[in-house]
């Protein structure tokens, strides 16, 4: 089992080093998700590219969040949920028994709908991940990790003087950027964002969108959003979900200008959803 785990991380590093453009980061094959008896996702297959933003859109309850949570196995934490099918990340099956969800989640970060910083200091919020994964040895290295994560999340200038203030004392937009920084701090390869702006005002939303655009250069980002404008603004690829099925997937520009499916057409023009 140890050997497998090492393979898993080894492959990741070598592929990252090659820095191939338009490379597929996550391959999903025939994913079904059940909540108890009820099936929420029907046979979805999808390739998510590296160093790009992929947006999942669709009406409420269409399964886009559920599908997103498959990618870092967050559905494991829901007792009644059952996932079938295969998801490959850099060629390794993440649902394999040898892959511990803890290791997977250190490579696939997640940002949630509502900002959920730990009720601790800003510093501790960021430092928690690196600490438990042993990513920094010594105080100084940890300080550097924290600073770089906050810088990447565009929050450093705002909070550098009050790193020991509680993270819950920040504004909603700042809290969400703190959560993004927290996800970045464990140096993941994929960042999943589940409607990261739905609880924020337009200015904070714009700030997050800018940030997502910057992060795209380093990470594979998957974002679930209800806002079609947001999907159009930040993403390169868009997947449209409807009633648990993947209706259409392609380049964002094409989806929004020339959708193939009539349901996509109806949704993006605001006829339902």
């Amino acid at each position, binding site marked *: 089992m140890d050997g497998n785990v090492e393979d898993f991380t080894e492959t990741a590093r070598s592929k990252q080093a090659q820095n191939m453009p338009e490379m597929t980061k996550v391959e999903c094959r025939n994913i079904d998700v059940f909540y108890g008896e009820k099936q929420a996702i029907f046979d979805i297959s999808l390739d998510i590219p590296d160093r790009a933003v992929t947006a999942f859109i669709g009406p409420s309850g269409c399964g886009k969040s559920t599908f997103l949570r498959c990618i870092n196995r*967050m559905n494991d934490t829901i007792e009644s949920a059952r996932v079938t099918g295969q998801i490959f990340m850099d060629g390794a099956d993440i649902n394999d028994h040898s892959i511990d969800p*803890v*290791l997977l989640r250190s490579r696939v970060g*997640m940002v949630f709908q509502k900002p959920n910083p730990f009720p601790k200091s800003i510093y501790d919020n960021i430092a*928690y*991940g690196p600490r*438990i994964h042993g990513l920094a040895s010594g105080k100084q290295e940890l300080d550097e990790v924290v600073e770089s994560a906050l810088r990447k999340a565009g929050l450093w200038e705002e909070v550098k003087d009050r790193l020991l203030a509680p993270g819950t004392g920040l504004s909603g937009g700042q809290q969400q950027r703190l959560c993004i920084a*927290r*996800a970045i701090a464990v140096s993941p390869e994929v960042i999943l964002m589940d409607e990261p702006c739905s609880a924020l005002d337009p200015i904070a939303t714009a700030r997050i969108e800018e940030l997502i655009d910057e992060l795209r250069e380093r990470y594979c980002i998957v974002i679930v959003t209800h806002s079609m404008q947001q999907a159009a603004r930040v993403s390169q690829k868009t997947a449209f979900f409807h009633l648990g099925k993947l209706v259409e997937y392609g380049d964002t520009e094409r989806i929004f200008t020339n959708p193939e499916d009539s349901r996509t057409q109806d949704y993006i023009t605001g006829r339902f959803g």
Partner: protein
Amino acid sequence: MNSPAPNPSEKGTFVTEAALKRLKKRHAAEMRFKLYGQVAIGIAVVALITLLVSIFGQASSAFSRNVLTFDTTLDAAQVDPTGARDPDEISRNVSGFNLLLQDNLADQFLPGVEDRARLRELYGLFTRLAVLPIARKTAERPDTIGSQQRFSVALADDIDLFLKGGVTERTSIKLGTVARISGSIETGVQMAFSSPDASDDITKAETRFQEASAADSAPTTLVSAGDTWFRLDTLADGSASLTFIAGEQALPAAGAQASALVLAQAQENRTVSDRQIAWTMLLKEEGRIKSTFNTSLFTHSDSTYPELAGAAAAIVGSLLTMLVTAMLAIPVGIFAAVYLEEFATKNRMTDLIEVNINNLAAVPSIVFGLLGAAVFINFLGMPRSVPLVGGLVLGLLVLPTVIIASRAALKSVPPSIRTAALGVGASPTQAVFHHVLPLAAPGILTGSIIGMARALGETAPLLLIGMVAFVAEVPSGPTDESTVLPVLIYKWSTGAERAWEPQTAAAIIVLLVFLVLMNLIAIILRRRFERRW
């Protein structure tokens, strides 16, 4: 409804007659509800205040006590007849020390008197064991034997009670000075007083007591003149005929200060005799009887004499029992709650466990006592009356409370914290121990401490495992025989002497202080931890 159309310019269309009526009704309902709440709180506050006032009122006399100081030479022949200077031997030689005290009193009040009954009356100012602390002190320092020492001893409970205003109702009357005196100590004394109202005052007081008491007990009047005490036999024409009872055996000189002490009951009907009262008053006048803070409540263990009884053994016993209880109930309770709430899969089995835990919390405590007696004592062969068994029984008793409180506290931690921790790659155990448990800690602590407070006040289960035994020694460990505060209170409250009453109230206060302290700790901990949220 055919109400007249409202005038829109005045009230607006919303304010119809019917609407106003409904509004009035609603306001009335609101006011009523507020009133009910205030009445309920008022009743609770009044009940609490009554309880506290009555307990503190009763206990106030137990926190002070009257002691007699006496100087004596620690005569080796009496204190240590064997001459071995063995500390055990000396501390057990209560009669020797008692003789020292009795001689001291007899020399002062009854020199040369051989009458056994009279002497016993004098010695009745103290109980035999009153000298025990002196014996122990001397045993610790044998070098003091043979030297002059000053000691203080506790007065017998009845005398103490009398000095605190108990035993019988009384009035003191100033009679001015002795105006005329004739007769002799042996055959009776005739005395007149300078105060013109002397006879009137005494008669009035006697009549008042006579009327107040339904019993046929006649009031008694004691008269003191100078250092001599008399009993009043008859009072006629401003001249009192008196019988000598105690004090200096000489006629007081004319001009000596005189006063009367009218007692509601004759000595046959009280626990303190006229002479004892006279001796006590004389000693008090001399300044040898003083009221001091009753430290024996905290330094002595239980005794059959209320003036010597203390709660030390019970306090230590309670602390040891609580220690065992805490060590069992808190860790087991918290881990059970964490497992059930965070890790266990929800199925029929866990449902069953949950229902059973909730039911256990409602099981009467005496059932746990039976369980303790059957399992720990009979089956496992543990000793009876020890804090270890008491603590285990109480631990089982509060375990469901701790589990329920801890689960509620864990449930109140928002799930977003768990997903956040899992999202950065924490394992479920790390998520619980790094994030969820610290956030639930204030609730868990509060629940645990309230559970402990309940255990501290439990009596019934401990009676069944034998912690009601008379324990004269302060326990030194959880396997020593011991008792606990609530059981001690129960035992003291059944004591026959009047002096147990304030003693019981004092023990209740000690228990209440412990409970308040525990609740205070709960509040402080909650505040401290909550600040981090």
